[in-house]
């Protein structure tokens, strides 16, 4: 291996009781592109945030060309030569300023003097833009530029610091193929200049095109490093998702009648239509990488997006919800992922959080019936084993796992036709995960259940049937009995051409 630009040893980071990084050992060689893969919650973004100075590490050692590197702030990291281009492009640019000011922003923010020398700024900016092949008038406002050019502006801005390590966080997620090609040419040039590049992405095409090595992360640790002539992308996906070693023995029932039938459903105009039956009493896990179409499918089921084509039938009747309120009335419920921003009402107690969607059931003539609320909450606290002093405890006083139980309980308190659980095990300890999983299976009769999960062992732990999504369509489906995980993982990784699927 080449000389390491960055050497990370035993890096740890915890937020409260939540250990996010549990000892990262990683070298990033100069002049090479290291692709970093990891599922949601594996700790990728925390690692990036430690490296770019947003969070301090708890322990461990980071060296940049042999020198200790402990940035106290993002600007310190930049000065030391570690430059990051963040995933959401608009974090990297100021839309209302012109290109020149954007390129020289760090100098403006940290520079000397009071007045700006506009001419000098423009001249410097032009040079930077030229160096990376950004072909725009530096006096144009960034808000007039397209996404790709904005991204190039963000990267060019980073280049002003002559970076030793360049971190690119999902840089192609909003670029077209042509725009991405331009980005790759730029990365090739930077690599030739000896910059170490940490490239975070899930796209196999990106990784195959650009990466010299792949590093997989899982549960806050490096779970695999793949180098050499031909990169083992599938191996990296397996290392990232983990081999399921479940002690849970599922008793897979025969599924009942189809409750929801998807026929020729196209999530995007250019994606392949698929059909799928979701049956009474059945728990279906849908898995796939970020961008595989899982979230889009959940949105369509819950009335937050319209499919590009195809039809849905709920218990025989056409089902095309305009919005979530219509979906809820039809008995289609969804627990969203990322509970902190999408589900938890801070300042409300457990009861108020649980009864939120069904206030109508707990009130007459608009007035709330506290007894009915309390009874429902008591039932959910007992059934899900929510650990609390009292049901009037503020939601913020609960642990992450218990908060998640409350969020699941919110939608299990009423009978549903279809329950969609989007990443219900995110940020949840193993005990809470088992409790929630067991409850989902136990109550499955009478409804169809869909669980969206990225991690394979979660899917194996909970599902009767596992469906793999990719490219916004179904890539494979497997009954969860003597399941061939290698085949599932190959489908997740996008190898193994998709077979003709008509599920159900």
């Amino acid at each position, binding site marked *: 291996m080449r000389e390491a630009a960055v050497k990370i040893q035993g890096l740890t980071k915890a937020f409260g009781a939540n250990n996010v990084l549990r000892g990262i050992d990683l070298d990033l060689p100069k002049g090479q592109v290291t692709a970093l893969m990891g599922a949601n919650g594996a700790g990728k973004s925390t690692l990036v945030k430690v490296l770019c100075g947003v969070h301090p590490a708890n322990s461990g050692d980071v060296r940049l060309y042999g020198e200790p590197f402990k940035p106290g702030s993002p600007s310190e990291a930049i000065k030391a030569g570690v430059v990051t281009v963040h995933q959401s492009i608009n974090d990297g640019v100021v839309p209302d300023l012109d290109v020149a000011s954007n390129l020289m922003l760090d100098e403006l923010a940290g520079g000397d003097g009071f007045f700006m020398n506009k001419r000098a700024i423009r001249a410097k900016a032009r040079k930077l833009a030229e160096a990376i092949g950004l072909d725009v008038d530096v006096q144009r406002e960034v808000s007039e530029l397209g996404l790709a050019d904005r991204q190039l502006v963000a990267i060019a801005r980073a280049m002003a610091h002559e970076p030793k390590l360049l971190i690119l966080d999902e840089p192609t997620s909003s670029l077209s193929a042509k725009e991405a090609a331009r980005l790759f040419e730029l990365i090739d040039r930077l690599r030739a200049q000896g910059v170490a590049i940490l490239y975070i992405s899930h796209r196999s095409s990106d990784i195959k095109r650009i990466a010299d090595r792949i590093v997989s992360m899982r549960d806050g640790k490096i779970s695999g490093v793949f180098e050499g002539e031909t990169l083992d992308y599938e191996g990296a996906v397996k290392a990232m998702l983990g081999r399921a070693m479940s002690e849970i023995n599922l008793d897979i029932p025969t599924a009942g009648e189809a409750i929801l039938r998807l026929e020729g459903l196209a999530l995007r105009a250019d994606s392949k239509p698929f059909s799928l039956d979701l049956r009474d009493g059945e728990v279906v896990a849908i898995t796939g990488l970020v961008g595989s179409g899982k979230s889009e499918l959940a949105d369509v089921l819950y009335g937050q997006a319209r499919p590009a084509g195809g039809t849905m039938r709920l218990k025989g009747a056409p089902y095309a919800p305009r919005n979530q309120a219509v979906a809820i009335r039809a008995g289609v419920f969804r627990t969203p992922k990322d509970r902190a921003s999408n*589900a938890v*009402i*801070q300042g409300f107690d457990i009861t108020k959080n649980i009864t939120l969607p069904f*206030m109508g059931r707990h009130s007459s003539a608009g007035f709330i019936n506290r007894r009915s609320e309390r009874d429902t909450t008591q039932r959910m606290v007992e059934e899900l084993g929510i650990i609390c002093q009292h049901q009037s405890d503020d939601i913020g006083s609960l642990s992450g796992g218990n908060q998640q139980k409350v969020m699941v309980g919110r939608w299990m308190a009423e009978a549903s036709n279809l329950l969609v659980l989007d990443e219900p095990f995110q940020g949840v300890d193993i005990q809470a995960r088992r409790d929630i999983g067991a409850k989902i299976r136990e109550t499955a009769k009478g409804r169809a259940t869909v669980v969206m999960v990225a991690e394979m062992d979660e899917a194996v732990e909970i599902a009767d049937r596992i469906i793999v999504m990719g490219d916004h369509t179904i890539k494979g489906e497997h009954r969860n009995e003597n399941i061939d995980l290698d085949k599932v993982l190959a489908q997740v990784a996008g190898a193994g051409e998709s077979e003709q699927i008509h599920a159900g």
Partner: protein
Amino acid sequence: MELAIKYGFLALMAGMLIFFSLATEFFATPRSAVFIFQSVSITGILALGVTATLVVDGFDLSIGSTATSALMLSSYVMVVWEMSAVWAVLFCLVMGALVGLVNGLLIVKMKVPDLLATLGMMFLLIGLQRIPTEGRSISTGMVMPDGRVTEGVFAPEFLYLGRHKFDFFIENLIPVSVVVLLVLGFIVWAFMELTRHGRLMYAIGSNERAAELAGTNVNRYKVLAYMISGVLASVGGILLAARLGRGDIASGNNLLLDSVAAALIGFAVLGAAKPNVFGTIIGALFIGILLQGLTMMNAPYYTQDFVKGAVLVVALVFTFALSKRGGAH
């Protein structure tokens, strides 16, 4: 510390009452109580509206000008159009609801930030209320821009709203406006605390996205909050007109700041750390007592503004820095 946060403001208010009673000769008299009640009631009614918008994490800067518009409109209806008190009140309530509706639609449909939308509405109303009379106050016998002399009068039942005082142990103690405040306060409190609509509005204020994903019609509740605010502001304006007995162009300047201060002080009452009706009314009372006390100590008007501002800052520190749930709003 917990106790200080919870009861600090009530203790401060009690201390203030004792201080003013000892420091001035006439503070602890029924007459001064009437003054306090009278000044508190209109501020308090407007502050209830501010509370409704704060609950959905919004803000209404147009309440002061909505109230003064109602003041001018009710005068115009009775004095120029020579219509009855009932019509005057109805016109004002409809105007308040319309202003709230427009505010709400600007915010939820046009995506104008709440502060800017209601600031724009404030300027618009300040100008609009002066156009029909070319900037003059409205009273019986005034000359209109077209040369006509107005002959209408303020109906006696309208003036009753502003001037009558009920007996309560002592003769003429409780002004009608105080009864209106208590009734409206109870209604808004019941709506916010006891009905599912109030619950959902608090949910929107805490996490709009989560409330929406739980099936709440967020836009409808936000518009409703601004309409409540507009209607309550117009009630305040009606009571002000009834007290003054003329469409005084210069009245109501302090209404916005006083009522916003009352609602924000309400955050600190009993450590609620969120907008709440009970706290708002206590906040309005607090400001009323403070102003009356300072007036009786012959403090000039500008020191009153200073003290009011200082109290507000202290109340906000109580709410946000000292209580652990400071980030909840």
